[in-house]
């Protein structure tokens, strides 16, 4: 046990510790600021329409809004940004050619609130694809080539308020997104218009609260004509729900390869729609809940 030997070891250890700390401190500070292909207005990075094939390198850590729309991106890899972008609230990737999104693509952006992936070439939404985005409020996926939506694709997105899936090839109604006891408690808008939905879980839809039905867009789908369908949408129309009132002309169904408006299915001899009345007997207690289409949670604007 030579004291001399111990000191020597210590002298070797201390400088290496200092070097390590120095490197760590250096890594924290952003060395480069605005990427060459982007326009930087403080924390907004506008890199749209630059014919980009890849995400620019060295995105600054203070970025709050990143606009990469109208480019030629095809893949969103796991390390698309090596630096964590903790302040990123909005990510705009519309009008690209994205056909692949890594399952770890959203790990560096945990505080994202608005994600625009519309007008791309996405085909499937894999399980847990968006599960890292626990603060996301608005997700735009319209105008892609989506055929399959995994049941767990939107798991853990407790803050999701608006989900746009229109203009795709979806044939299965994702009931798990709106059903009671669901994982998306704040979802007030689910746009499934212009897809390939044929069958709807009508009895389950009937039971949904009005504020969910108000934001459930199902128009422009090849739905199967059915008296129940007529009853459902007539009720929604009576309640002046936006999803029906705003798109009345586009709510149709298919019968014998013909398009029919969902509000006139006389050829099926459906009984005329009548708003159901409450029935009660003398002395009974009757509870009527106010099923309003106004959501208790007001949706705030996207991003900050």
């Amino acid at each position: 046990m030579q004291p001399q030997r111990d000191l020597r070891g210590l002298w070797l250890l201390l400088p290496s510790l200092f070097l390590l700390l120095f490197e760590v401190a250096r890594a924290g500070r952003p060395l480069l600021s605005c990427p060459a292909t982007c326009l930087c207005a403080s924390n907004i990075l506008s890199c749209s329409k630059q014919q980009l094939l890849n995400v620019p390198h060295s995105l600054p850590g203070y970025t709050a809004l990143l606009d990469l729309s109208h480019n030629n991106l095809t893949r969103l890899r796991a390390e698309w940004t090596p630096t964590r972008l903790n302040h990123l609230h909005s990510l705009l990737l519309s009008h690209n050619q994205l056909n692949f999104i890594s399952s770890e693509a959203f790990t560096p952006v945990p505080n994202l609130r608005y994600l625009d992936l519309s007008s791309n070439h996405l085909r499937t939404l894999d399980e847990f694809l968006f599960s890292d985005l626990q603060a996301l409020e608005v997700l735009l996926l319209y105008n892609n080539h989506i055929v399959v939506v995994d049941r767990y694709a939107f798991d853990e997105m407790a803050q999701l308020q608006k989900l746009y899936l229109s203009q795709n090839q979806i044939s299965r109604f994702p009931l798990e997104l709106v059903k009671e006891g669901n994982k998306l408690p704040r979802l007030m808008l689910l746009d499934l218009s212009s897809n390939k939905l044929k069958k709807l879980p009508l009895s389950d839809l009937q039971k949904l609260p009005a504020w969910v039905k108000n934001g459930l867009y199902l128009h422009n789908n090849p739905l199967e004509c059915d008296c129940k369908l007529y009853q459902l949408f007539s009720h929604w129309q009576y309640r002046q729900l936006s999803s029906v009132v705003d798109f009345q002309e586009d709510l149709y169904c298919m019968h014998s390869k013909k398009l029919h408006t969902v509000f006139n299915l006389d050829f099926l001899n459906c009984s005329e729609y009548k708003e159901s009345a409450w029935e009660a007997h003398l002395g009974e207690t009757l509870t009527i809940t106010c099923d309003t289409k106004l959501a208790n949670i007001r949706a705030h604007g996207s991003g900050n």
Partner: protein
Amino acid sequence: MAWLVLGALLCTMGSGLGTSDLEDFLPPSAHTCPSKCICAADLLSCAGLGLQTVPAALPTAVADLDLSHNALQHLRPGWLAPFSRLHALHLGHNELDALGRGVFSNASGLRLLDLSSNRLRALGRHDLDGLGELERLLLFNNRLAHLDLHAFHGLSALRRLYLGCNELSSFSFNHLHGLGVVHLRTLDLSSNLLGHISIPELAALPAFLRNGLYLHNNPLPCNCRLYHLLQRWHQQGLSSVRDFAREYTCLAFKVEASRVRFFEHSRVFENCSAVAASGLEWPEEQLHTQVGRSLRLYCNTSAPAVRITWVSPQNELLVAPGSQDGSIAVLADGSLAIGKVQQRHAGIFVCLATGPRLHHNQTLEYNVSVHIPRPEPEAFNTGFTTLLGCVVGLVLVLLYLFAPPCRGCCRSCRRACRSRRWARAPSPLQELSAQSSVLSTTPPDAPSRKASVHKHVVFLEPGRRGLNGRVQLAVAEDFDLCNPASLRLKASSESASSTGSEGFVMT
């Protein structure tokens, strides 16, 4: 006959048009959706279509309208009248060179307006009328050189204003061109042509706005007062300065090309004295309090105010009756009362006072520091006892290492030996006698330190000399530890009983 054939043909054609294979069904676009635009529930995207005018029949229930990346040059006043639910309007990347009076007048619910990357040269007094609920206004990357003094009046809810990458050569920080200061958190004036900034006006801005005030990449004159102000903001950790420190430039000489990054090359401010820094900023009143105590803040305006609004360190707007969580109350006289101060109440409280007797809205800041109350003063500081324990332990360890005789630690012995050798002549070891089995307690005429070297009892392994298991010992009055090889041993039966039977090998 020909008519019959024609009629039959038409009938078959008609039925043919009516059928559509279910498998190849392609939903026709929504009736109300303009051609080439994409309608997704309450979103309407007509981006990147090369439009020169706004399409005529847009669905009126739209909430988010995207007309970016087109070639729009003019907007009709009142064109937003049918869109009562509109809350976001994207007009970026177009060719708008002027707005016009009341262009957005019917968009009272609008929250986001993106006019970035256009060709706007100026903002008139009434261009942004009617946007009372607007929260974010993006005007970056235009050619704005002139802002009317009241260009932003009416934008009382504005939180973020981006004016970067324009050609502004001046900006009124005093009046903020009519902006409501209460909600404003981001004011981006980066990458402009700001050559002159009024330092006192800048210093008078409320704390919550300073953090979001971006002034980098402007040709500011290299000015001691400016440097001191920004240096202070940098020290305060304001992100608008910290994140962009490298981009802060000033003109060393009156020539455009003489821009210096003054946070990196601060030599240009070598001659600035620290004295210039004092008196720059509005004095912040410093308040110290402890957790659990109550606190009362009065907005000490120069004249009585009609209305007082506060902003908490958590950026919460405080009006009567108080904060959302109930911990802070706003009283009738406009003062702030915190019943039980918590750590989260620490920071800068800003009060905004308005009134007829005040020439302009006055803002005052109160820097509240919250200390955790110290417990009863202890009889002794436990920290010191811990330190003492460590030191004692260390000393004991060192003693253990260096004090007892062991070959490895013989350095000290050798030292003693060396000095002893010179002091006295070594006595013969052979002088052993039965009497000397009893150790003499009186050391010879040598200092006690050397006595320890001289008086030693050495026990040898039993059975070494075949003495029936009796322990041999050698006692020497004068024993040279430094030269153990010269040790001669003699068995002493008398001493065996008095000593222990433990074997101790002298190596």
